[in-house]
């Protein structure tokens, strides 16, 4: 087997040193009834690299790829062009095959990168500090709610109806077992969000308000009033960003008073990957840092006084604090954080702003074009690179019919909110720099046909 270096004679020699007669001796502690006497039945044996590669190549060719189709899906995962150098760098063995940087003297590469990543995320979100990553946006969101609970010692969270329904589901899953209360609602196909509801709901028992920005329908609203009301009642404002590229165009949540900002970092560096691995972003005000979940990298000096970096404040973490830890997270999303950080370094402020402008410009043009189709209405007044259309019929079959025409034409709200009649005709359309105006035209034509 190509991955196993021991030769039969090595094995023999080693058994000799150990003083065992056969390899079975080493499994003597396994009770007889649980020992398998040979390879598990019904499973194939080893295969050549070529055979395995072919198997995957055949499966891969059964999927319709975003790059070779007019493509308009979003809803928390966006198609952006990732520069080739990003993937080159993350494949360097020194990044790819390292563990969490437990021995800082020989992990300065990972540590300095994390320090840079934390700074980039904090600045992007308008916060003081950020951590070294979470699994993804949805789990980061729940962790933020939990953190707000620890800080405020309250257990009622008010969730905006504009929060991604899967993020809401994840929170609900946890809340049903932790005893937290979640105040939730469904969105409406309206140009404005339910911020009025949120303002109403905040009271002295509220631990936090959770608002997505831009929200699930693509709408953008100022968070300042909610922040003010929350702070007035001793509650925190948690902002959730599923499209970080937007922050190259619109104000950072931190600028509007958010206490904790979490997000999905997939847009930068990571790629679509059918949903994972992605990377959770987590930032907050400095005063809350000891309640943060996840790893943190900090600056220090070595025995010679040279600047260096280490994992720090680990007394918050499971390996030190065990059941009293701020979270159970251990392995996070390091390599995706690296990819995110490289992409953002390549962009820089100038590139990020340019990219955001390009996305917004194309999205505006696409929204205008698509809403010219008879019966199609643009729901949004405001949006960045994603908006909601109201179709004259149920959107879900429309999306399938578009796929038959080789157009991946967005995400139906029916998929995200099954059995909610008021949303069934909603179609979420994302337009990034990867879409051309010809793609938009192809989409428009196909949509017209399907709706006819």
């Amino acid at each position, binding site marked *: 087997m190509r*991955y196993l270096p021991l030769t039969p004679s090595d*094995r023999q020699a080693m058994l000799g040193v150990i003083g065992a007669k056969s390899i079975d001796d080493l499994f003597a502690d396994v009770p007889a009834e649980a020992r*398998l006497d040979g390879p598990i039945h019904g499973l194939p044996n080893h295969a050549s690299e070529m055979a395995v590669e072919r198997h995957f190549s055949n499966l891969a060719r059964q999927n319709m790829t975003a790059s070779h189709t007019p493509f308009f899906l979003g809803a928390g995962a966006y198609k952006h062009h990732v520069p080739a150098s990003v993937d080159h760098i993350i494949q360097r063995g020194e990044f790819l095959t390292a*563990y969490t940087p437990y021995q800082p003297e020989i992990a300065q590469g990972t540590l300095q990168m994390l320090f840079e990543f934390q700074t980039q995320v904090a600045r992007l979100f308008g916060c003081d500090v950020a951590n070294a990553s979470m699994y993804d946006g949805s789990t980061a969101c729940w962790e933020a709610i939990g953190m707000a609970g620890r800080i405020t010692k309250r257990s009622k969270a008010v969730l905006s109806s504009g929060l991604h329904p899967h993020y809401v589901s994840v929170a609900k899953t946890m809340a049903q077992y932790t005893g937290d209360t979640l105040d939730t609602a469904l969105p409406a196909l309206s140009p404005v969000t339910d911020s009025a509801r949120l303002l109403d709901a905040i009271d002295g028992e509220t631990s936090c308000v959770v608002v997505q920005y831009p929200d699930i329908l693509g709408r953008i609203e100022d968070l300042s009033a909610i922040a003010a009301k929350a702070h007035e009642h001793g509650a925190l404002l948690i902002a959730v960003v599923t499209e970080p590229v937007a922050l190259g165009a619109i104000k950072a949540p931190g600028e509007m008073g958010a206490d904790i900002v979490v997000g999905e970092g997939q847009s930068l560096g990571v790629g*679509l990957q059918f949903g994972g691995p992605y990377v959770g972003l987590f930032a907050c005000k400095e005063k809350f840092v000891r309640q943060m979940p996840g790893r943190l990298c900090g600056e220090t000096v070595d025995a010679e006084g040279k600047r260096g970096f280490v994992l720090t404040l680990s007394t918050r973490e499971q390996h030190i604090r065990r059941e009293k830890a701020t979270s159970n997270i251990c392995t996070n999303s390091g390599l995706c954080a690296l990819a995110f950080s490289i992409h953002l370094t390549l962009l820089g402020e100038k590139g990020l702003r340019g990219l955001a402008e390009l996305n917004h410009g194309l999205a505006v043009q696409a929204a205008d074009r698509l809403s010219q189709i008879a019966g199609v209405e643009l729901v949004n007044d405001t949006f960045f690179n994603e908006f909601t259309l109201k179709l004259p019929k149920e959107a879900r079959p429309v999306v399938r019919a578009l796929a038959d025409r080789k157009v991946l034409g967005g995400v139906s709200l029916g998929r995200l909110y099954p059995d909610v009649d008021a949303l069934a005709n909603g179609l979420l359309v994302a337009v990034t720099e990867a879409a051309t105006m010809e793609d938009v035209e192809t989409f428009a034509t196909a949509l017209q046909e399907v709706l006819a």
Partner: protein
Amino acid sequence: MSTINQSGWKPEMGSAGETGPATYTGNKALMLEEALIFEIGTTGTTGVDLADAPKVTPRLGNLARHRDIGLPGLSEPETVRHYTRLSRQNYAIDLGFFPLGSCTMKHNPRLNEKVARMEGFADVHPLQPVETVQGALAVINELAVWLIKLTGMHGVAMTPKAGAHGELCGILAIKAALEARGDPRSVILVPESAHGTNPATAAFAGYAVENIPATSEGRVDLAALKARLGPDVAGVMITNPNTCGLFERDMKAISDAVHAAGGYVYCDGANFNAIVGRVRPGDLGIDAMHINLHKTFSTPHGGGGPGSGPVVLSEALSPFGPIPFTERHADGRYTLVEEETASARHPHSFGRMTAFHGQMGMFTRALSYIMSHGADGLRQVAEDAVLNANYILRSLEDVLDAPFAHSGPCMHEALFSDNGLADGFSTLDIAKGLIDEGYHPMTVYFPLVVHGAMLIEPTETESKVTLDQFIGAMRSVVQRAKAGDPMLKSAPHHAPRRRLDETQAARKPALVWREPEQAVAAE
């Protein structure tokens, strides 16, 4: 002329403590210092070219971002160099032996990387119509079938994002099962030697955590466990093979006792590598076990993730597993069970754990690894992993204290304590000495049940030549630690940095870069 050097500290000839002549740059030939992007980049620099944006009237609702964000950019050449230089300050499996106990730092095959990058997997959106992603769903399903058969379990939840997330999945399934039968319980029992994620997970899910003691052999004390079982105990979390590197001989008896008391058995499967293909956890009565694809099934650790932690489930717990998951139909088509269909197809699910369908990029890699080995190769994996660990155990037990050396053969890892070193010397010094020798140290100070624990997990992908050289180096370093060599106390000497001041880092945390308060006066 130059203001800062690439390391961010002022170059100075002949600075103290250097080995060999100092340099102007601070570099030492191929050991290169590197400044922060904030020190070398500017917000006006970019490493991308973009098409011109169409001129439109913005629809941003007066929320345009005006203030500077403070994100420096680098051109592509500078970017590639920045990260390449940083990378060279890391140790990694690709460089050498990385025997980090409990972490299974095995070789990460490059085929897996290639497969995961095939456009058909890397460039598809999780919410595409399922008709357009049949190949992707097939990968998830095929991997699920392998995991079920390799563990002898009934079902598998594929969405958990890492081991700890898998633990959460298992504990939530237990909680859901108990609530479904109207018997909510409040306590999870965890051995002292357990990994920190175990108690943290139980607490995260709202349980009280109580310790189970170990026997002097390093295994769960069955009698003590039995004594504690009762109507308040929801379940136990046992690691098998355990974190002392031993197989829990009484696993079946533990499961039976817990089941008899109305509880469930969670098994931490981080160490599955030791038994894959030789033992099926399902035969030992467990109800849920996570599998770290980034350990046993070779997906790369990436300097801290991403991982993937599918959880195999017993028949009793399967109905409570999370959504979404894939279903294969008689005609070969695949569908997803999501919110829409869950009430019909999977009504008892405890819900959703993450936004999408799990770590697809890890599934392709793990399946590629599994298919490459096949049933026969995986069995060999376990055998070679255990053989390598025992070889290390027996080759070092004469110079290092091995507290459980008499508890039988070890499994995939060998555990030592720091008893017997010279005064003032401890595990940390051995670890730092190994760095100079060109190795990544073993896991240190874990498990907590052994003084100055050194947990060495060689994995099956190391050759005898490598083990022999490591054993030689280890004996040399241990000998220095016993002799009280002051040069060992100040090790490492050859790494990019000497020992780092962790206390200072924690006392006044500097977690983000800040512009120096005032520019250093020009020299």
